[in-house]
């Protein structure tokens, strides 16, 4: 009789453990790529401040080429003091939004305080005489509770993410277009102005009657400065490319709302994630 009861209990624990494992597996979400996409985007978002500072520095440098020979009107560099805080706010709104998507999509709930994992150990600590069977029961119960919570969280996350992505898609398209077409383009214009004003200066300051070594040094300095400005311009273009990737990726998420699956998200987002990572590295090395 005792043997039958024991067998029944073991079977019961096996079923509970198997159910917990099954639920845990089914509870996995398909949104890992969204989290990776958000992380890669953050690296790009953090470069904006340095670019904005770089544009102001470029503006001041452009004005340093004004002299009696290169007598041209100065650029209005104070404009950056007025506009940069607003531009940073727009950039932060976009990348904070992307970060919140990534946090909500995160598969890993281990950082969410739960206390499930410690229950069995806590019981043992509280009652050193607790039977192995009761400890196993506690482990199975806490595993099941964790799995059920994860399943609920998975469904809830998908539902909320889907709604948020749908509601925000127009905003993301508009803000990325603004940051690329107006903010980053303004930076590019300033780098172009620096480049042309220095070209004008270098051209006017070279003189056939000047000492050859001085002429050579000036030419080398002008060429080196031009190369540096080109690097900065290329970095701003990388930022614009990254914004385009973000806009397109968000659009794909929006188009497939309700039908997200790991394979499709991987296909749609992984190339963009790689581009974003490379773009952030290029921008960081230029500023």
């Amino acid at each position: 009789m005792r043997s039958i009861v024991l067998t029944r209990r073991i079977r019961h624990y096996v079923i509970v453990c198997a159910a917990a494992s099954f639920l845990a597996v089914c509870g996995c979400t398909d949104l890992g790529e969204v989290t990776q996409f958000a992380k890669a985007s953050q690296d790009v978002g953090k470069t904006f401040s340095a670019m904005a500072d770089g544009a102001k520095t470029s503006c001041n440098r452009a004005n340093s080429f004004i002299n009696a020979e290169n007598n041209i009107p100065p650029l209005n560099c104070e404009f950056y003091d007025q506009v940069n805080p607003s531009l940073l706010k727009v950039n932060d709104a976009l990348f904070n939004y992307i970060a919140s998507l990534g946090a909500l999509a995160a598969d890993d709930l281990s950082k969410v305080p739960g206390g499930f994992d410690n229950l069995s150990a806590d019981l043992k600590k509280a009652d050193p005489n607790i039977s192995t069977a009761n400890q196993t029961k506690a482990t199975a119960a806490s595993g099941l509770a964790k799995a059920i919570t994860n399943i609920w969280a998975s469904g809830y996350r998908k539902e909320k993410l889907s709604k948020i992505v749908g509601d925000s898609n127009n905003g993301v398209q508009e803000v990325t277009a603004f940051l690329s077409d107006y903010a980053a383009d303004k930076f590019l214009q300033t780098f172009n102005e620096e480049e042309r004003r220095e070209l004008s200066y270098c051209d006017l300051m070279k003189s056939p009657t000047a000492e050859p070594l001085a002429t050579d040094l000036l030419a080398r300095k002008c060429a080196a400065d031009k190369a540096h400005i080109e690097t900065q311009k290329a970095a701003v273009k990388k930022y614009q490319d990254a914004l385009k990737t973000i806009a397109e990726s968000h659009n794909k998420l929006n188009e497939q709302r309700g039908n997200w699956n790991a394979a499709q998200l991987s296909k749609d987002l992984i190339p963009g994630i790689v581009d974003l990572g490379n773009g952030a590295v290029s921008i960081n090395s230029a500023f």
Partner: protein
Amino acid sequence: MQWSPLDLKNLAAVYDDMADQVLNFRVNNGSTLSQTQKNQLTQLFGQLDSQGEQLENEALKGALVDIDSAVVDLQNATHDAKSALKTITTVQNAISIAVAAVGLGTALLNPTPGSIAGSLDTLVQAIKTANTKPAGDASAAAPKAS
């Protein structure tokens, strides 16, 4: 007539192109130009460049006003996402408390030395955890320290 930000931006591009053309003409023909002609071309180049800059600044200011509602939308969406994450944490904490309470119930029905106190401690810990700050707050895109 009211120029749109896009009109102003396109005009700025035209002025920038003209500034480039004038500068390139001066640089490419420097040996044949008189000093007076060079000075005139330099002044013209500077004026075109500055006007392009002013037009671009006006375009950016106008576009900033236009984008304001989209920025507010994204800020609201960020708030929604954070609230959803908080809800997940709250539910998980509630279930944690329920599991701990079950442990306490078992201890009450099958008392052994220390089991009630220990299970009660588990329940208290679960409630304390539930009251801690929710995890997963998305960190802001902090500006890079320059």
